[in-house]
């Protein structure tokens, strides 16, 4: 876990890609979950953030 935060701090690709993947996964879950409309409403911003992050961090060094 500390390796993960360390990777984030030092702008390493692996850790940030993981974070972006998690965001996308959460966003997709929020989009399709049957529990609360408010989660559905905010799903798109979360997915968008994850996707944009994914594109940006692919430029970070390994």
């Amino acid at each position, binding site marked *: 876990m500390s390796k993960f935060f360390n990777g984030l701090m030092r702008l390493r690709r692996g850790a940030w890609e993981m974070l972006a993947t998690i965001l*996308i996964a959460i966003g997709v879950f929020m989009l399709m979950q049957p529990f609360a409309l408010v989660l559905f409403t905010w799903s*798109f911003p979360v*997915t968008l953030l994850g996707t944009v992050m994914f594109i940006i961090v692919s430029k970070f060094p390994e």
Partner: protein
Amino acid sequence: MSESPIDSLARATPPALAGRIRGLSDRSIAWLFVSPTILLLLAINIFPLIWTIRLSFTNFAANKPNAEVKWVGLRNYERILTDPDIWQTMQATAHFLFWSLFFQVVIGFTLAWLINRKFRGNDFVTTLIVLPMMLSPAVVGNFWTFLYQPQIGLFNYAVEFLTGIPASSFSMLGSVALAPWAIVIVDTWMWTPFVMLICLAGLRSIPDYIYEAAEVDRASKWRQFWTMTIPMVLPFLMLAVLFRGIENFKMFDLVVQLTGGGPGDTTLLTSIELKREAFEKWRTGYSSAYAIILFVTVFGLASIYVKALNKVKER
């Protein structure tokens, strides 16, 4: 292939130019070769995408091209993301996506695991099993409405034959309770071979010596299965699940032919709803925003997919 693409290019090019093409540096050849593809993709994919983004901020309607187009900012997005009906279509999609993936993974993996015993004729039977996957979903979906007919349909008759429930007593496509499962059944029928093929590739990538070592260590078959087989196949399974997940998230052709979204709105998947908004109600601006929401979701999943793809490639 009797004529290679390059032969025809060379014939179509005037001699002087052809001479110059032949003497080109590697760098220019690289650009010459890549740019037509990129240009085509820009014209067919990227330009329309940018246009969609632009439209998504307006109230444009394609059936009224001369009406005044107003800039509405984020209003379209706001309306879609607070609309319980659209949320409902997402849940219908989720039900379809989850259960069809679930059955495909369970059946597909089991089949791959059985086929991997390399019994006589396993290649032959694999080829047979794969057939449904390659067929046109619309044509096959249409024919399944025939198989699902109460009374005369083969599916209902098979159910009667196996369980004794009278064939005319239920309608897979007409009943609110059964229709969501009817589409899951057809999708599972069609795409289980896909998951099976990928799992089979995963199983075959496991080298024999690992099992031999485990046997020396006296690990039980059950333990071998959970500690070696499953972890080794998992990256492949991930790939299959992501790919099918993306495909089923945007599912249109098969389900539109099977149920058209009905009965009620029980099988109204999100792509079918988008089609209605865009091409029946002609709310172009609104449906452009809808399309962008779906697109971003698919694009995000595709990024993860490509990451998984590279992982499998390294094996």
